[in-house]
């Protein structure tokens, strides 16, 4: 850590807020609704092969319409994050 930041402690409100929340529920399950059709049309038009997918209200995998993309789904190694991880 930079020595300039020594003694710069987290504000009380931050401490309380964080202690009342959990990583799995509040970070990984945090999601946004996206219009997959809009994004995939633009990806196609730009010449990219990759397509965006998401989850419906039941948590099922969907590839069109409006869907939720959770923060956990961005992470490598999860179902929706199709990445080229085979080259390691």
């Amino acid at each position, binding site marked *: 850590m930079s020595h300039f930041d020594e003694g710069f402690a987290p504000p009380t*409100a931050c*401490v309380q*807020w964080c202690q009342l929340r959990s990583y799995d529920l509040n970070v990984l399950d945090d999601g946004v609704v996206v219009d997959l059709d809009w994004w995939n049309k633009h990806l196609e038009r730009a010449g990219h092969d990759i397509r965006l997918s998401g989850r419906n209200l039941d948590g099922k995998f969907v590839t069109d319409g409006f869907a939720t993309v959770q923060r956990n789904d961005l992470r*490598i190694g999860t179902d929706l*994050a199709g990445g080229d991880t085979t080259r390691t």
Partner: protein
Amino acid sequence: MTRPNESPLAKTLTVLDSCVRDRRLPDLPTESWSGWPDAPGVGVSLMATFLWAVKGSVAGGPAQLIDQFGVSTLIHEGWLEDPAVTGFTLRRYDRYVALLTRWATDIGTRPELVEMWLVQRWSARVREARFGSHAAPTLF
């Protein structure tokens, strides 16, 4: 274009592939003043998000998202740094990550939650300033 056959994304993809493989930024000899690898089209926030997604780390600790609202809160709370996230050098991002990591350790939580608080705190302050007593009491 000097190399018309090369995909315009080639440079960027090389950097991102390297991040996936090594879970850290490539050590390419970079001419950039900022310290970030040369990945055209990828700004500070997107690179940070990508690094988080591939479980990457920087010198300061595990990579964390970075948003202008969050940095604005940090500065409002007394952090002495340049405010604009778009101009963050890699060194300054390292300092940011190190601070979040230490705060999380002090609190006994994860840096991701600290980052989330920073962003939401700014939004809550803006709401309160705009709507005053009509806003839901969100200023925590």
